């Protein structure tokens, strides 16, 4: 019996969303079990992690499309009851109670709120949770609700049922994905920081929430009294909190820094101090962010211990802390912002009872070794915060990595792509525009004079028909509208309804059912632009008319075109045969796609000298499975000769020792790795007792040890030349330090910031083991670093004038990109390097962008089918390297091998009037997706429809309108614009 194809997703953390996105796009059904009562109740936890002060992830997740295609089954107030069976054939039982308001039927008319008799605070017992972002989420406050049912009666679409029955549902699924979300520490966990004890202490997540609602303006930090604070403390609580209460993901100190910078932006005069123990920004661009804060005049105070005592009445809080030097200080601020970590997941016990997954010593979900997401139980996966304190990029990568890892348990895709509608070409017909004005089930009637508007609309030149419709957002009304369009015999349609941002799909469905291409139609945000925001009847009429006039002018000049399609090659090219490359190759091959693996050296495996035994074994295993696979063609001592084409259609030539081989591929994985940076100075190379961590590891393996060992961190990292944190050095150094301690050595670590991260808190362990730490002011690279001197027989490390004798000096050197190779490859692939010299992510110039874009953009737009993985992308640990590879594979699996794909996201894309195109190439330069190329023979631009997201940059830069968007041509735009102003 074939395996089940559906996946159960428990919880909605970012990883869960990402997985759902990928599964839906790939064509697997999924069940979203949401413990909360609406779409993403944990949004604010997400915000707390993503200090961008906004998050639109749920908006980018095409829930409506998935719902429509039957891919998604979303369940609320859900609770998992039982899990039986095994991987590939799980039988799950859960209960759920749908939320009172069904988003997908709700038209957001607010009548329920108007009729609700129960006043609660400023609102009613049923209210909108605006924080829910992309669409308003109507929530009933059952504490106060009297169940009078008034709202239910008034709801025009029957979307609202106050009492929903609790249902018990059973389902067969192939795999289970545990994605329970980030949980913030409770107020009690934070009592040492005075939370809840006075007006002047607040969580960062709360500031983020207020920022979203007050639009990043000063109000987000205004004190209850209405006063604007002038002194701020931003405190990274996990650095000072009791052990085991909260855990830190490595983004946290960046969150603090980012908040501080934001404060400086809106209150340039304010005094902002960031309290932390160490700055632990180990991700892309994080060091630059730190330097930016210093430039912005943010004070960064490092403390050993810290507590906050707020004044209960006066808006003031006293920060008591001891400096690293041990002297205790006190600072008084008007507002203390707590950047909190995450508590261990509350659901672990329950989950292990149901599924058999195990918790680790810290209470997070345990994963099997060398797996990114798979738990001890076959077919049960866990992603993101559930598995430990994680930063967003990793959480998001988990999502796709899960897709990769669960493939082997899943059956065939079980979501059939919808059939293409048959549209009629209206060319030659006289233009007949129909204007359909939505009354939103009658509720607009008393807001403005719709019949009057219809009259005026009908009188517009070119309009042959105008009428009021009930709506176009529910099954019946969509059908009805389609009917009316047919009957009225129009061949152009203007729909004055509400937000196409959410409902375009529905409107498209209506017009296409009526046989018209969306190119012949325009959707107006009648509700958002007129009804909900204005009151003056005359003004509303005028504005509505202007909008309709513009739309009419636009559709009058619309032309029917059939959507473009493109094919996507089902083969993959992997450059680099190290851990990342091997992982990518094996995973892709495992899914039945041919792979070509290119390795520069004469054997696979990459740099193994830094690996421990298990890791070496793991790599060996990969190599043998590569050799065993019939799907993988492997070329050693080979390199990429030339590459042409674009995502889905690459043509590459590989230079091998014998003859060049030409290869076609849909995607390319760049896994060319990086190098250990070799230290300058510090007597390295001059004195055998000065060594790198890698060399230390070798010596320790050889059983050597020493009495006094000094370690110097950040050697060749976070400098002007190497402007980033190499991420791995701290954990590695601390591991070594602990081992040395166990062998009785005195270990002193000279550091700028200890940026250890991850599940095991090596920092704490090291301290407990008695490793001594001495900070040096490394922000000043010139003078701050310690100096290594010969001292008689031994060595001494001199930091800030003090001498510390040492037998060994171990330098924690960073990881540097293989500049030469990377530049050549970057040139060849036309894929950018970032300012750090690694291969850039899709877009990662801003912190956390990476997370959001990776989540929200199908790769084929962002990275043109090229995936930097492992060390080629950024310094990564062994496990993280595997993760990046599997994430990339997961993203590739979404599209690879698909044929005749319409362009992503849009039915229609940019196009070119070739007889007008001068081939000047400015549009090629500005196209963010490499979706255009100059045909050297014809000297005109050609479109690669698959890559085009129809952003229109090409249209704006093209001086003579040779470039145009099929759904908004040049000759439409001016006419429409003029019409607005009549």
């Amino acid at each position, binding site marked *: 019996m074939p395996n089940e194809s559906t996946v159960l997703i428990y919880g909605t953390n970012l990883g869960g969303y990402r997985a759902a996105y990928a599964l839906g796009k790939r064509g697997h059904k999924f069940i979203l079990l949401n413990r909360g009562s609406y779409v993403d109740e944990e949004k604010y936890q997400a915000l707390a992690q993503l200090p961008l002060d906004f998050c639109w992830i749920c908006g980018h997740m095409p829930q409506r499309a998935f719902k429509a295609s039957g891919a998604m089954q979303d369940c609320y107030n859900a609770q998992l009851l039982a899990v039986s069976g095994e991987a590939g054939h799980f039988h799950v039982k859960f209960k759920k109670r749908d939320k009172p308001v069904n988003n997908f039927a709700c038209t957001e008319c607010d009548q329920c709120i108007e009729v609700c008799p129960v006043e609660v605070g400023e609102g009613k017992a049923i209210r909108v949770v605006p924080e829910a972002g992309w669409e308003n989420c109507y929530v009933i406050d059952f504490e106060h609700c009297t169940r009078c049912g008034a709202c239910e009666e008034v709801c025009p679409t029957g979307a609202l049922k106050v009492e929903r029955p609790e249902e018990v549902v059973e389902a067969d699924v192939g795999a289970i994905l545990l994605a329970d979300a980030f949980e913030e520490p409770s107020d009690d966990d934070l009592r040492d920081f005075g939370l809840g004890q006075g007006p002047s202490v607040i969580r960062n997540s709360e500031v983020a929430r207020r920022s979203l609602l007050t639009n990043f303006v000063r109000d987000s930090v205004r004190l209850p009294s209405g006063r604007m604070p002038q002194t701020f403390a931003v405190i990274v609580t996990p650095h000072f909190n009791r052990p085991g209460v909260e855990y830190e993901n490595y983004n946290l100190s960046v969150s603090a820094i980012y908040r501080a910078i934001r404060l400086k932006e809106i209150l340039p005069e304010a005094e902002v101090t960031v309290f932390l123990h160490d700055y632990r920004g180990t991700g892309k661009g994080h060091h630059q962010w730190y330097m930016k804060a210093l430039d912005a005049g943010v004070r960064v105070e490092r403390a050993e211990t810290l507590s906050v005592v707020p004044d209960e009445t006066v808006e003031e809080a006293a920060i008591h802390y001891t400096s690293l030097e041990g002297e205790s200080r006190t600072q008084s601020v008007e507002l203390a912002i707590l950047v909190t970590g995450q508590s261990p997941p509350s659901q672990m016990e329950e989950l292990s009872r149901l599924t058999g997954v195990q918790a680790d010593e810290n209470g997070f979900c345990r994963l099997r070794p060398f797996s990114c997401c798979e738990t001890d139980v076959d077919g049960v996966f866990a992603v993101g915060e559930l598995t430990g304190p994680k930063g967003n990029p990793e959480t998001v990568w988990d999502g796709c990595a899960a897709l990769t890892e669960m493939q082997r348990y899943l059956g065939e895709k079980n979501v059939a792509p919808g059939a293409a509608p048959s549209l009629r070409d209206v060319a030659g017909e006289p233009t007949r525009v129909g204007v359909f004005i939505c009354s939103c089930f009658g509720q607009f009637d008393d807001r403005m004079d719709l019949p009057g508007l219809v009259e005026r609309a009908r009188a517009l*030149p070119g309009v042959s028909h105008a009428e009021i419709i009930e709506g176009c957002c529910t099954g019946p009304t969509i059908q009805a509208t389609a009917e009316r369009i047919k009957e009225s015999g129009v061949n152009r349609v203007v729909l004055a309804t509400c937000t196409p941002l959410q409902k375009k799909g529905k409107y498209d469905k209506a017009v296409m059912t009526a046989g018209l291409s969306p190119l012949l139609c325009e959707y107006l945000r009648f509700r958002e632009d007129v009804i909900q925001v204005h009151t003056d009847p005359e003004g509303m009429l005028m504005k509505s008319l202007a909008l309709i006039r513009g739309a009419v002018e636009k559709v009058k*000049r619309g032309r029917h075109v059939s959507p473009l399609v493109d094919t996507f090659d089902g083969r993959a090219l992997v450059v680099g045969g190290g851990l990342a490359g091997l992982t990518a190759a094996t995973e892709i091959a495992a899914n039945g796609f041919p792979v070509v693996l290119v390795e520069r050296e004469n054997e696979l495996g990459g740099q193994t000298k830094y690996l421990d035994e298990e890791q070496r074994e793991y790599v060996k295993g990969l190599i043998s499975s590569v050799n065993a696979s019939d799907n993988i063609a492997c070329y050693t001592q080979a390199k990429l000769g030339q590459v042409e084409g674009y995502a889905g259609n690459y043509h590459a030539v590989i230079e091998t020792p014998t003859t060049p081989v030409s290869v076609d591929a849909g995607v390319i994985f760049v896994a060319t790795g990086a190098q250990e940076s070799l230290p300058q100075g510090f007597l390295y190379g001059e004195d055998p007792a000065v060594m790198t961590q890698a060399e230390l590891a070798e010596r320790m393996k050889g059983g050597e040890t020493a009495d006094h060992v000094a370690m110097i961190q950040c050697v060749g990292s976070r400098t002007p030349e190497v402007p980033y944190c190499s991420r791995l050095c701290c954990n590695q150094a601390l591991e070594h330090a602990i081992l040395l301690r166990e062998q009785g050595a005195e270990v002193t670590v000279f550091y700028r910031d200890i940026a250890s991260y991850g599940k095991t808190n090596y920092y704490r362990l090291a301290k407990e083991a008695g490793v001594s730490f001495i900070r040096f002011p490394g922000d000043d690279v010139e003078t701050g670093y310690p100096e290594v001197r010969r001292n008689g027989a031994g060595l001494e490390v001199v930091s800030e004038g003090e001498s510390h004798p040492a037998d060994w000096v171990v330098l924690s050197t960073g990881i540097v990109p293989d500049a030469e190779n990377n530049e050549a490859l970057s040139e060849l692939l036309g894929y950018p390097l970032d300012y750090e010299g690694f291969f850039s992510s899709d877009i990662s110039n801003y912190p956390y962008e990476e997370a959001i874009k990776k989540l929200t953009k199908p790769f084929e737009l962002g990275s043109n089918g090229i995936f930097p993985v492992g060390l080629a992308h950024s310094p990564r640990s062994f496990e993280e390297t595997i993760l990046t590879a599997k994430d990339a594979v997961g993203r590739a699996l979404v599209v690879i091998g698909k044929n005749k794909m319409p362009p992503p996201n849009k039915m229609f894309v940019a196009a070119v*009037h*070739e*007889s*007008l195109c001068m081939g000047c190439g400015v549009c090629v330069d500005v196209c963010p997706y490499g979706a255009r190329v100059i045909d050297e023979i014809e000297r005109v631009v050609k479109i690669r429809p698959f890559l085009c997201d129809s952003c229109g940059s090409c249209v704006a830069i093209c001086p003579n309108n040779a470039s145009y968007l099929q759904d908004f041509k040049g*000759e439409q735009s001016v006419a429409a614009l003029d019409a607005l102003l009549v």
Partner: protein
Amino acid sequence: MPEGATSSAFASERLQINQGAEETVRELLRSLLESGKVNAVLALGRTGGPSGGVAYSLFRDPEAFGADGDALPLLPFMPANAGGLLSRLTLEGPVAEPVAAVVKPCELRAFIELVKLSQGNLDNILLISSTCGGVYPLDMGIDGSLEKKLPTYWERMEQGELDDDVRPTCRACESFVPEGADITVALLGEADLDTQCTLHLNTERGAAFAGDMEGTTVSGKRDSEALERSLDERKAFREELFAGVGVGLKDLIHTFGRCIGCHGCKTVCPICYCRLCYFDSQNCERPAGFYEGELARKGGLRVPSDTVYFQLGRMAHMAISCVGCGMCTDVCPADIPVSTMFSKVGAAAQAVFDYQPGRDVTEEIPLRTFEEEEFTEVAT
């Protein structure tokens, strides 16, 4: 041209008004706009204030035709060929409500020609023209000398003569009596233009629109001696003018030697209606190899190339429909007598087919060589 030909354009009915021609026309247009009989009027008018220039405008506000309004309907000046403008106005379809246009005979002919080429639509267009005494060259519109000239101009018009300073093209124009106008304002050779005015109401539409004007309706054949005389003079001048320019290849090369390739002649030509001129299209963008090949044959060649090719080609395309309006000469920055050459060639071609461009909208154009250059792909 047979005896009395010039008057054949007139219907027998005409309206005599005791008011200067200028006032009459202004009054007529003002009332038409005020009464809403016409939706707009296309006529010349001042732009950029008193010190500014003159351009055609679509007037909606009746006041423009008031005593000190901006409109200058009878100004002997032609900043653009209004035939082309009418085509632009009605390119996408007829105007919904009547629009009046005050145009010169050559502009009228151009519009008729364009309608034949389905580049415009006559419906609802009220054509008002006049017996034309020619217009002054563009550069006289710049330095203000035009203003000074006007008294002389009208004086000589009353005497049925042309001022020597009007464009040579006009002095050589044989078709100065409009055909197919709804209303013709009699100007050339009319006495007392500042107190008297005769409107020929050639069509029912004309009669309908001008009906309300106060005046006496007169019918019966009208002596057109002055017009005949002017025709003879102009014929004479025309022969002179044509004799002055050669149109052999050598002459062309010489005359067009100083062409700067701006193609302004094409742009302002009302008959050149192509969206994208063949000679501006890819077909005439040569690869470097072409020049190198040419170079191998000749010692040297001109870059950009195709100067004479363009002129000859354009002739082939439009000479048959050339209405001899003279815009091309007027606009040429290199002072090339383009119009003279084109009229000369055009006249010959038209004679072959006994075809007079723009005379009658029902008349077929003998040969059309445009279509191939149309770029349907960029059509809207």
